């Protein structure tokens, strides 16, 4: 059974005079213990999908879906309070903007302590406080913060963005969730701690069989340890499937361009020669092209592309393109 199964998720922004569709009919599913990556350019709607799943978008956003199944339970049909409880218990998210997701007037210890589940503690409340402190310290060590006393006693604005991000990660793994959504969890970190965080996430996945949905725009970094890869462009899922297949033999022009433009792909490139890149930029949500949203930038585009391509399934490898690339 799928742990998470999202079907036709659509997220729209109501601007008053018209409705902007930021995420269009996205499908996504993952099994227990799997690591999936959600990649796409900046502004393609990756964070929106994650936030819609967590239920943290404000009222201006309208979220509709045929179904969002969590272990067979449809979250869309659950009353809000129940849904929040369930998500709070089983899904955790590392937010992209760590410092704005921490309460500015509460000390770090308070905020981490809140995330530590009651059930793991024993004894009377004064004993619990001590246990919480130990747990919080251990969590901070796990994410690579050594000066735990100082950090626990600080307010978020006294810490750097990188430390806030680590605190965010500590809070997210405190409940040992079934699914961890990591929204670019290492952007504010230096490369050594970045590797440490990846190791931590990998071990959590392997030892505790925690599923992870990694959001990133760096394909190569994820390729070797993710089971599934979902490529998003402009709010549409253009290609999805097992990482090896998608990465090894991309069928969608956009995925191919993404892989070709990554520095790892270009190591053999001659000095000072140009990196491969698609022409143009990602269109704004107000001026989306009709039909295939990649159309104006696509090297393979043809007349048929003015109609929105449907997703075609090639043995679990779905591609939304009229002219999928054939294997060499």
């Amino acid at each position, binding site marked *: 059974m799928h742990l998470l199964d999202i079907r036709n998720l659509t997220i729209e922004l109501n601007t008053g005079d018209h409705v902007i569709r930021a995420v269009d009919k996205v499908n996504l599913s993952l099994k227990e213990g799997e690591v999936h990556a959600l990649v796409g350019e900046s502004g393609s709607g990756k964070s929106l999908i994650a936030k819609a799943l967590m239920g943290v978008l404000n009222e201006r956003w309208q979220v509709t879906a045929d179904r969002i199944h969590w272990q067979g339970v449809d979250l869309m049909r659950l009353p809000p309070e129940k849904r929040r409880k369930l998500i*709070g218990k089983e899904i955790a998210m590392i937010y992209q903007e760590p410092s704005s997701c*921490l309460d*500015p007037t509460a000390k770090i210890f308070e905020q981490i302590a809140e995330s530590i589940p009651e059930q793991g503690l024993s004894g009377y409340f004064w004993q619990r406080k001590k246990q919480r402190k130990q747990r919080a310290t251990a969590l901070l060590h796990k994410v690579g913060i050594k000066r735990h006393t100082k950090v626990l006693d600080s307010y978020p604005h006294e810490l750097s963005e990188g430390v806030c991000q680590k605190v965010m990660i500590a809070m997210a793994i405190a409940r040992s969730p079934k699914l961890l959504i990591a929204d670019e969890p290492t952007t504010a970190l230096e490369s050594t701690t970045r590797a440490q965080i990846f190791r931590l996430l990998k071990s959590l996945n392997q030892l505790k069989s925690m599923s992870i949905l990694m959001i990133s725009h760096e394909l190569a970094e994820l390729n070797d340890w993710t089971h599934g890869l979902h490529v998003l462009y402009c709010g549409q899922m253009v290609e999805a499937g097992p990482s090896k297949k998608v990465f090894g033999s991309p069928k969608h022009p956009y995925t191919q361009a993404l892989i070709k433009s990554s520095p790892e792909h270009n190591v053999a490139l001659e000095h000072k020669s140009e990196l491969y890149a698609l022409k143009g930029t990602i269109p704004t949500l107000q001026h989306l092209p009709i039909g295939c949203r990649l159309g104006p930038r696509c090297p393979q585009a043809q007349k048929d592309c003015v109609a929105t391509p449907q997703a075609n399934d090639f043995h679990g490898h779905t591609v939304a393109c009229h002219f999928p690339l054939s294997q060499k």
Partner: protein
Amino acid sequence: MLRQYLVRRLTLLFFMVLLLSLFTFTLSYLFPGDVSTNLSGIDSAGFNANDQITEKYKLNENYLLQYFAFIQHIVNGDWGLSLASGQPVFEHVKTLFPATVELALYALLISILIGIPTGVIAAAYHKKWQDHVIYTVTLFAYSTPVFWLALILIMAFCLQLGLLPMSGRISLLFEVEHQTGFLLIDILLSNNTYKQAALIDAFHHLLLPSIVLATYPTAVLVRFTKDAMLDVLDKSYIKSARAKGLNHSQIIFHHALRNALLPVISQIGLQFSTLITLAMITEVIFSWPGIGAWLINSIYQRDFPAIMGGLLTVSLFVIIATMIADILNTILDPVSRNRSHGQV
């Protein structure tokens, strides 16, 4: 950082007080009549006395020296005599001002105790019936004129039902020694046999004026607290705390309230000037022996030394109260409290 901030605030306070004193001094020239009379409160003085006053206030010297002399007398507590009563203005202020502060403080206390929880409830039940009821009531509280409300309440509770006294601070039956000027404290400090009865009587007298005075600030606080709460509840740290599985009351009490109350505290400070203005009207209606009623009376009687003294006191009080609220806000807010902390 905090020290720097305090120094800045105190400098600002100094200049505001300087301007205020300059303005008050100028008033003695702007008011009709003799400058010496306006300053000293001694009218149609004999030749000798007039010389003394001229000497005292250095009226023959230049304006700067006159101003310094004026300041010196003010600081020494010599505020001239009231034209109407012939008594020293400073003595009047000393007995009257505590009555006003007492009334204003109780009204403020009521509005804080009612306004902030109500605002929180309105925000917690945003767009539900509780919110609509609160909105309607505050709309009335906003738009009802103080004097009208006072008269209606007097008609209902004093004249029709006869439950509460109509005017004054305490019944003439009780004699309370003047110590601090705050009646309730004075009663508690005194050792009369009728202490309890006096206290109850003072409460009865206090009830209507403080309710009338509290109405408008309460409405303002309800609205402000609600807006601040809604603003904070929309922040992403609240959203993410909620996604952690905290329930509604945990969110409100652990995260939202603390963040929302910071702007509310500075708002309370800003309410002081409105409160004092409204207190003047309330005092006149309830014959409350406070500085507001006295000031208005002095204006009618063209008692210039009294007007100057009253204005000075009231303005000084408002300035200092606003400043204190501002400093309090800074001390309570961790973000502005210590930006100097090193980063980890």
